[in-house]
């Protein structure tokens, strides 16, 4: 075999390539060769920068996707007064009634309007005769959110923390009945299965039997952090108890002697299970007569039936649970359906010391979904009790715009009234709880007056969703005069609807696009061929590429003939 193609000499090909390369650089930008090249060839001609991309056609998304707006009003169900709620999607008042009365004490039609198991909260025996039950049995299950399915790519049961954002998570949830998803076609989780793990309330001195029913595929326990309990019920596999395996139960019996804002969490592989979401508020209310407490506050937020003790000083009460999510841990549950592989990836391959948090949640949602259910709505001259838990692995620097609130308790222990501190950044260590008295008196200290005031963690990464702001745990303190009929704050600021678009948090929308009629900050379209120099440049690049191909052919032919000759000699 011989090459019929005419072969150019190697040196001539090399020289041509170098010369053309130089020409190409000069055509592209002569200042790369010599910064003051314009001294010789004059100023470059004006070239218009590329135009802006057209503004995207955003899908119109309803800011408040209300399901049952009638649930916002005040209710009296089974003799229980349930406060009104201003949330876009308020708690189901029938469920609140069942939590307060006990699922054993409500009539069937009430229970049918909930999705609770009949034995979720069993309340009996008024032992001290003060008008409320003292034997309380509470059953919690462990649910996975946004898990993997062997049948398809869709996550099950689905749960969005923000538009289009579905990290894997585990939660403690009240024992429910029926399907985990809305129905067979809509794989969204039912309303009881959500972040955060439901806050639990009991009364001081109650005989509480907390039963963990492990419906999940990994072992778990419950550690009653800060709640008065005996060593026997500490929930720690290294000291006092065996793991509760899937399909199994663990019973915790307590009779808490001290009231306050406490905490509960799983104590198995805590660096994984705590961060997956198995952490919640556990509140011991002061012992008062006729004190029927709301055993679960699903989704945290407003407590629609505050305890007698709280109502003595406060008009209303909110549970605020702050959390963070590292997707490189949480999304592991979406990588395999085999628990053995997941256990290895989560416990041995994932390394929390290399972890970084991506999402920041208040009551299980990030902005803008916080606006749908995590607003704090107030009236002037009102005391609101806020119970804050920091479930994230970093210090929370909670800041309230327009308000300085007073810290009345740390970790469930009251601060001496004379030593109480009033401030506008409340620092809360991981797993710490603080009680705040938010007093809306317009005196320049407690409040600066009515309005819509932001409330957020001032560690700036926490106001983002994977680096995109506004996101994270931003919420609002809203004076009720500023609420509109859709239960959202009417603001003087920019239209928020763009943030309800998943594309915004994928970084596909220009930050100020909706607010910028000039188009100053729109995305730039790509550069197009627009001058004779660029035309020449592309042609020269084509020639250069051809030369390099010829050079390779020449080299290959040389090597080939060398070996052919050697073979022929032999």
């Amino acid at each position, binding site marked *: 075999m011989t090459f019929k193609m005419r072969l150019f000499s190697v040196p001539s090909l090399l020289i041509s390539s170098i010369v053309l390369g130089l020409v190409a650089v000069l055509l592209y930008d002569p200042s790369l060769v010599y910064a003051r090249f314009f001294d010789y060839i004059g100023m470059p001609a004006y070239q218009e920068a590329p135009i802006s991309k057209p503004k995207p056609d955003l899908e119109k998304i309803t800011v408040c996707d209300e399901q049952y707006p*009638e649930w916002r009003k005040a209710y009296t169900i089974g003799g229980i007064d349930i406060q009104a709620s201003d949330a876009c999607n308020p708690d189901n008042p029938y469920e609140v009634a069942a939590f307060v009365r006990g699922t054993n004490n409500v009539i069937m039609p009430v229970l049918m309007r909930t999705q609770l*198991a009949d034995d979720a909260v069993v309340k009996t025996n008024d032992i001290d005769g003060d008008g409320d039950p003292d034997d309380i049995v509470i059953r919690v*299950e462990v649910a996975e959110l946004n898990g993997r399915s062997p*049948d398809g790519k869709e996550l099950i049961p689905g749960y969005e923390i923000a538009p289009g954002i579905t990290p894997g998570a585990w939660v403690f949830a009240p024992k429910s009945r029926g399907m*985990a998803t809305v129905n067979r076609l809509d794989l969204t989780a039912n309303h009881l*299965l959500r972040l955060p793990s439901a806050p639990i309330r009991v009364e001081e001195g109650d005989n509480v039997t907390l039963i963990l029913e492990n419906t999940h595929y990994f072992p778990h326990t419950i550690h009653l952090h800060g709640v008065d309990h005996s060593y026997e019920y500490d929930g720690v596999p290294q000291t006092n108890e065996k793991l509760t395996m899937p*399909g*199994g139960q663990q019973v915790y019996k307590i009779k808490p002697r001290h009231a306050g804002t406490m905490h509960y969490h799983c104590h198995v592989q805590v660096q994984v299970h705590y961060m997956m979401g198995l952490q919640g508020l556990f509140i011991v209310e002061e012992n008062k007569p006729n004190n029927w407490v709301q055993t679960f506050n699903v989704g945290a937020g407003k407590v629609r039936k505050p305890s007698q003790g709280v109502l003595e000083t406060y008009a209303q009460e909110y549970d605020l649970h702050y959390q963070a999510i590292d997707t490189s841990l949480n999304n592991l549950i979406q990588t395999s*359906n*085999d628990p053995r592989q997941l256990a290895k990836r989560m416990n041995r391959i994932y390394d929390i010391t290399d972890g970084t948090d991506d999402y920041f949640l208040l009551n299980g949602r990030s902005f803008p979904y916080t606006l749908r259910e995590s607003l704090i709505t107030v009236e002037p001259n009102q005391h609101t009790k806020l119970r804050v838990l920091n479930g994230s692995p970093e210090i929370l620097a909670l800041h309230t715009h327009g308000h300085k609130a007073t810290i009345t308790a740390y970790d469930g222990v009251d601060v001496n009234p004379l030593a109480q501190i009033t401030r506008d950044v409340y620092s809360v260590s991981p797993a710490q709880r603080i009680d705040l008295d938010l007093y809306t008196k317009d005196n320049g200290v407690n409040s600066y007056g009515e309005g819509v005031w932001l409330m957020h963690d001032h560690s700036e990464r926490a106001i983002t969703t994977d680096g995109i702001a506004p996101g994270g745990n931003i919420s609002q303190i809203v004076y009720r005069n500023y609420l509109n009929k859709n239960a959202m704050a009417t603001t003087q600021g920019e239209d928020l609807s763009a943030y309800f678009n998943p594309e915004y948090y994928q970084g596909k929308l220009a930050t100020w696009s909706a607010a910028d009629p000039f188009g100053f900050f729109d995305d730039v379209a790509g550069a197009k061929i627009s001058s004779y120099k660029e035309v020449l440049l592309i042609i020269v690049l084509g020639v250069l590429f051809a030369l390099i191909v010829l050079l390779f052919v020449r080299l290959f032919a040389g090597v080939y003939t060398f070996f052919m000759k050697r073979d022929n000699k032999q």
Partner: protein
Amino acid sequence: MIKRSGLLLIALLSLATASQASMRMGDWGMVMNENSQQLPQGCDSIASEQSITVKAGREYAKAFPGTIFGYDQHTFSFPRCTRVTVNFINEDQIRHQFMIHGLPTYLHPQGMFHMELYGEGEVQGTFITPNTEETYLAHCDVAQHMEKGMKAQVKVGGGNGDLPSIPGVSGQLNKDRYPLDLGVQNMLLISLLFLLGFAGCLFLYRRNKK
């Protein structure tokens, strides 16, 4: 607003009638949308009677690596127009369900026949198989229980094929990937098969050349 509350009213009413028709509920669990009397369309009479026992629990996951929960049996076959009495037994200390989907909606609201036990226990429920050749999904819909093994199929009149990821019956559509076993035996087998392909190709090439 008016439209919404109207819808809610209808939803509640239908819930009420459904519960009236076939709802048993207690601290043991519930049986919803039973049907022991009404004939499915195309059935002249109850052709036969059958009763089965379905056991649910982590015990039954042992046979299928990578699962945590399971039923003692994952395929059930019935003739058409048959009255089936299901004896559902839960052996775990947590909630489990045996829920059949896709049944005629005029007999079962949302096409669902639903048995649920809140803990260890036993309950009976009845349904009548329709006059079709269809494979129905039966599962436990506690979060992730179906995914982790509690999935079965009910074949009526021979059924129309298998559903995906039924333990011991059919494979996954969203497949799990596993690393290779690097043991001597497995690697030897892999090398042999690989060599067979490689050598076979070279052998054919040389023979063609001659």
